[in-house]
């Protein structure tokens, strides 16, 4: 369960304060697939960063499984991310000096899993990259890199996966492939997924979505509504 209570974010732009996110409250129940949609600069990525504890809110609190993460120090936050949150970025952010297999192993090694290597191999198989395990990121295509990133995000079987424009840097085919994988994870593992995108079509794959504009929520679409509409169209 993810809960944001009156969370806001203001930064200094030169000498002027600039509000990126106006106070907002959201509850994301366990096992949901939420899409956060909005144009560039609307505060989507900031919201995702706040949920992951990558950034601290100016006001309000962020609760993950009822723990207020705004009160945790950096190391506890890192531990929490390692155990509960998987991350997928638009620019993949693989570690260039490690092979695909090693990139996937890292989160498991950090928490001291003994069978990290075997699990990493299994994960790569799951995303269809068995043959590419010993390649470095620079030797992989964009789509392959993103699949490695996805395998890495799943390494510690996190209950939550946060994806920031995961298809933004990919062509349509590869983008679709990644989305299918995300859906599969959501359905098979019951993982909570928060997907940030500006692509409305992708967002429609989610159970529910919120639309941000200039740091405010301008629209919330419930899962049942979506499902009902989908049913009507069908």
């Amino acid at each position: 369960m993810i809960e944001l209570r009156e969370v806001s974010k203001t930064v200094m732009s030169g000498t002027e304060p600039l509000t990126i996110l106006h106070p907002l409250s959201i509850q994301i129940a366990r096992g949901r697939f939420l899409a956060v949609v909005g144009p560039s600069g609307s505060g989507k990525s900031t919201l995702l960063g706040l949920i992951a504890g990558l950034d601290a809110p100016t006001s309000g609190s962020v609760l993950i499984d009822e723990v207020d993460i705004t009160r945790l120090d950096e190391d506890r936050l890192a531990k929490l991310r390692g155990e509960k949150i998987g991350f997928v970025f638009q620019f993949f952010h693989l570690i260039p000096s490690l092979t695909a297999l090693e990139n996937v192993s890292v989160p498991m090694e950090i928490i001291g899993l003994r069978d990290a290597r075997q699990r990493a191999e299994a994960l790569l198989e799951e995303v269809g990259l068995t043959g590419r395990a010993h390649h470095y990121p620079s030797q992989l295509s964009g789509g392959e890199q993103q699949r490695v990133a996805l395998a890495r995000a799943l390494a510690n079987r996190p209950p939550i996966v946060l994806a920031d424009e995961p298809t933004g840097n990919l062509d349509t085919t590869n983008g679709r492939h990644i989305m299918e994988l995300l859906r599969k994870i959501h359905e098979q593992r019951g993982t909570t997924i928060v997907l940030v995108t500006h692509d409305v079509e992708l967002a429609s794959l989610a159970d529910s979505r919120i639309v941000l504009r200039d740091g405010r929520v301008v629209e919330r679409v419930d899962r049942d509504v979506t499902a009902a509409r989908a049913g009507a169209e069908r």
Partner: protein
Amino acid sequence: MMFVLRMAVRETRASWRRLLFFFLCIAVGVAAIVTLRSVIQSVRGVFGREARSLIAADVLLSTNIEWTPEARQTIDRRLSEFGANERTESIETPTMSRPADGRPVARMVELRAVQREFPLYGTIGLQDGRAYSYALLQQHGVLVRPELLTALAVKVGDEIKIGQSLFTIRGVITTEAGRRVGGFSLGPRVLIDYDDLASTGLLGVGSRARRVLLVRVPDDSIEPLVRALRRDFREQFVSARSYRSNDDEVGRDFDRAENYLSLVGLVIVILGGIAISSVTRVFIAQKIRSIAVLKCVGARSNQIMVVYVLQVLALGLAGSLFGVLLARATLAAIPIAFGASTSILAEADYGLSWSAAAQGVTIGMLVSLLFSLVPLMQVRNVKPSLLLRDESTANRRDWTKLAVMVGVSLGLVGVAAWQAASLRVGLAVCLGFAGLAFVLQLAGRMLIVLIAPLTKSPSFPLRHAVLHLSRPGNQTRMILFAVGLGAFFVVGVRSLQASLLQEFSVQVSEDAPDMFLLDIQRGQADGVRAFLADGTHGASHVRLMPVLRARVTGVSGRETNLETFDDVRARGSLAREYTITYRDHLEPNERITVGAFWSGASTEPEVSVEQGIHERFKIDVGDIMRFDILGRIINARVSSVREVDWRDARSGGFMFVFRPGSLDEAPQTFIAPLKGPNDPAARAKFQHDLVEQFPNVSVIDFHEILETVRDIMSKVTLAVTVVGALVLFSGALILIGAVAMTKFQRVYEAAVLKTLGANTRTIAKMLLFEYGVLGSLAGVVGSLGAIGLTWGVSRYALEIPWRIFAGEHIGGVVLTAALVAVIGVVSSLDVLKNKPLATLRAE
């Protein structure tokens, strides 16, 4: 822990090329430390281990007059009191030797007449491998050094004439206990039986023979015995010393050499450390995204820190071990450099000293860790949110980092103090280092302010170069800091090196006299002058100086009043016998500090005293000194104080110089320093002809000694130059490190400028301006700092006069500027060549 270890291995695997530089810096620094330490320990060992056999006794008593019965009584009493269990006597005197067959050659030798028990320590090695025995000397036998065989063209079994007696050569000495170290010998050693000495007739009146008593005593009695004997013979011309005092004298020279080399070693290590700091900074800057990713997937800051610290330690260890290997190779090359040299330095065994190796490796690891720790602290400030959007890391006041910086500074002081074997020196070096860093930071700020008006320059490259120097996140202060420190150390060490070498060269210049004629009688002076002036004999730089033996018997002056000779004796060395001279001019190595030097002769006795006499005994201009010159009493007025540069031995040095007039008729002899013919055959003939014509004149030939000293000096010069080059190399490493540090930023900028239409030439010019200005300023600040460094080190560490070598400093500035400009532009070549799109995409 497994994660940390695995990551450290993977990171090293991935970045080893970039870290090669790190490795190199440490290797060079450690190699320097280990080599310098090993060499100094080896050479010191040669002297130290052999200290006892160098004087062949525990305690040595010597006098230039015959032992009086009273003196013998005192000695006997003391020796039995301190449990001396063995003693032997010998007599040493320089004399001429000739072949018995009357051929026209002669050679000055150092004759030593010994008894059965000699030597008490050490051995006498013979060329054919036989063991030395006293029997070889008995019945007019003689053992000689190989040089004499060559000089006189004789062989074992032949007879040679020493004084009035004939001796048969029974063997050739290769190594010899009781050889004096450091002092000059007047000729090759010749050993005869003590009992045969009388027959030579060399012990007559006016003989320069030195009587020596060698004693063996239990270890704990050595120093008390020496002290007691010194007390007993305070007022007589008997000196007592132990093998340790011999060691101490030599030890001082070694301390000086070791201090210098330790400081140079330290400098090389610090230069390496600065380069390491630069490299680590670049390395971490390039790793920021990876660090953010690691944090994002759950790694804690400390875990990541440990990954990099482990890497640093592994590199430090590998670099240090490689440095030890380099040192080993260098040490192996030293005997090759010495070649067939016969100097005592060539006798040392230049092995790798394990203590030096251990010290080198420890310092290598410590320096790697200390210099990389502060840049590594950056890891803590990396925020995983930068994966979502670009943001600069906040510059909050970081107390942990501050604490680490304090700890690192203390660690560096510790390393410096350890390396220089003195907390004071270590602290001084580190404070100087910090002071210079501060000045360089300040200079950087001032430069930015001063060149601000140039941003309005009509030249595009100049305008942009200036903008680069002052923009946010500029490289100005970092490059100034690193290069300025490099220039400071390199110019400083080179100036010190020049200073040291000049110090040496004064002592062994080419036109230094290499022959001395002694005991020229007054009646022979004109004849000897004519002989030397005869061009066919090949002598040059000849001067005849009158010398007299004199003793100070009283002083009446403003501060010092010594009525009787007993009063003078109470002043220690003032009572010794002095060799004096008279002349109407100053020598080139003399300078008047008080009063005025006379011109012309006067019957009124006047004397000029040496600075040391003036200071130690408080004898001033206007005081009257009473001298006993061979029984004749002369009261002379002190009219000037002279400073003598004792290192410049070409003109000799006298404590007392008299005004011509009053001493002209006193009993005197002449000495003549001169430069003899260079050809060995001509030298032999010169000596023979001179001795034939003036039999009483002694010839002391310094040629071989000077050659040996020159040989050693050229080796030392080579060593010092190599060390200087090593420092220069480290300086260049720093520069490369500093340039590399800001390169990634420049590559991107150049790509943008190219996209906007700037051509390669414009960008090259821009880089040239930027680095030229930085290099010049770094050179100026470093060079000025080096003046301070040489002053402090010359005065306090090396105890030599302070000299400024303008060439080194000006050259330092010009070279630094040129080097920075060239390295800056060359290392940016790919910036100039690259197609901009590739660079922009990579960003």
